[in-house]
């Protein structure tokens, strides 16, 4: 079981490494962090805050972008390109394939985020900004968010095309960051249909704002260990549920 998952994961990782889009995005992240240094020079106040903020935002944005754009093709591209035929003709269970694909992309994302973190920390040291412990907490939760968004993308890609998966994943991501507003609308509105829709979206979409502590972390204000653990646990459980859903759907598919 683990062997098969490992073989698929390593092959997915190799595919990601040889995929040029990944390097472009990584280059973009590094350029963004460097640009924050330049921007900081052009302002008179809170130079360090700008560098810290922009760096975290870049790591988050690039991680999510890679998660979405590689995740949406993780399964659907295998079906569209018919590479799935020879893979599924091997002594491999379908859920092993799904777990392997996800694990391979998760490995790629961890290495990407690690590289971006190292560059980010180096940038902060060079610019003389303070290295708060809270920054590590923020990057930890960014990683969880990226894993969750990737799971959403992969879930959609098991039953629809890459384009539709991208649209739905981006939709979930946006709604996931607006869940508290949706709740607010649901409470205030008099229209029952709108109330129902807002409540449904609130309960269906993950609350990604729970994983967003970038603002306070950049000021050196961390969160408690219990919050960090609970938020990470929430994100990972949500991702696990989506992966189980993806396995169930994939099990029943005709190719």
């Amino acid at each position, binding site marked *: 079981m683990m*062997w*098969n998952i490992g*073989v698929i994961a390593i*092959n997915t990782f*190799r*595919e990601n490494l*040889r*995929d040029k889009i990944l390097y472009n995005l990584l280059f973009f992240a590094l350029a963004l962090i460097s640009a924050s240094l330049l921007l900081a020079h052009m302002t008179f106040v809170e130079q360090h805050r700008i560098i810290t903020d922009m760096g975290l935002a870049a790591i988050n944005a690039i991680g999510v972008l890679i998660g979405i754009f590689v995740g949406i093709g993780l399964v659907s591209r295998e079906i569209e*390109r*018919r*590479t*799935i*035929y*020879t*893979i*599924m*003709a*091997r*002594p*491999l*269970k379908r859920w092993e394939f799904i777990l392997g694909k996800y694990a391979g992309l998760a490995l790629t994302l961890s290495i990407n985020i690690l590289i971006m973190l190292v560059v980010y920390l180096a940038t902060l040291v060079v610019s003389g900004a303070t290295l708060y412990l809270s920054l590590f907490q923020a990057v930890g939760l960014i990683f969880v968010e990226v894993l969750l968004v990737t799971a959403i993308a992969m879930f959609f890609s098991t039953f629809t095309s890459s384009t539709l998966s991208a649209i739905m994943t981006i939709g979930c991501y946006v709604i996931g960051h607006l869940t508290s507003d949706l709740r607010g609308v649901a409470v205030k509105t008099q229209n029952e249909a709108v109330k129902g829709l807002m409540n449904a979206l609130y309960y269906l979409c993950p609350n990604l704002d729970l994983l967003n502590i970038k603002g306070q972390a950049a000021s050196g204000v961390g969160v408690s260990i219990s919050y960090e653990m609970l938020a990470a646990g929430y994100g990972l459980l949500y991702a696990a549920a989506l992966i189980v859903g993806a396995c169930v759907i994939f099990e029943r598919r*005709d*190719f």
Partner: protein
Amino acid sequence: MDAIRIDNLRKEFKPSWPGRTPVQALDGLTLSVERGEIYGFLGPNGSGKTTTLKILMGLMTASSGRAEVLGHPAGHVETRRQVGFLPESPYFYTYLTAQEFLQFYGQLAGLSRAKIASRVQELLEIVGMQHAGARQLRTFSKGMLQRVGLAQALIHDPQLVVLDEPMSGLDPVGRKQIRDVILSLRDQGKTVFFSSHIIPDVEMICDRVGVILKGRIVAEGRVDELMTRGRNHSIEIMCEGFVSDRIPELREMATRILQQGLRSLIVLPDSTSVDKTIGIIRDHGGRLISVIPHKGSLEDLFVTPTNQRD
């Protein structure tokens, strides 16, 4: 025990939009493939060949009926250790080199590192791709992909090899190579089940053939049986020493007479009048050169109107 047994298999594709009619891809397909034989699964495009193969490999579920591979229900995961599969117009991970590609499939089959290394070299040589082992598949032609695809199907030395149109897109040299590989598999006691719409390939190497039309087997049996079954075949008689097309009896019996000087080619519709024709030739002082019975072709099974079901 048969290598493959299919009994009354049906597959209906439901329409993607309401109101449209469903497509019946397989309509009570029944066939069996014995162990150690090369079985040709012959049929025109859209007859249900690929659907059958997908069901056998567990890529698709049947609407009803039964399909067994090596004694287990189609799709049984562990049975796939004994089965190799090459899909039609294979699509592979183009970022891999041919060696990495075969290593990947060897790993999925659970082979040891040493076994994979030796099998990769061996198979690249068998399919004539030893010179391209370090090249990425994205640089391969269709024929090269087909050959490296066949190698992946054989990496784990399977008992049963299922090939979907293995010769399509290949040049004559490539087709001969694939034919030789298939024949060598039979010599090793393996079973080969392959689909094709290229009749000469099937005639040349198959022990038995099943002809599928509109999701049903319309003829099944040994190749020579199918080519002679229930049909009369013409006989060509070559002779010399007299002008045969001036003899009314011969003109009556023959479907065609070609005369070149004193040499004649007499085409008879069947074998019933061969003796009488030879007698006439001798009576007129002619000399018999050859009598060639003309077999039918599997192509007849495609084009015979009685086989076209509506």
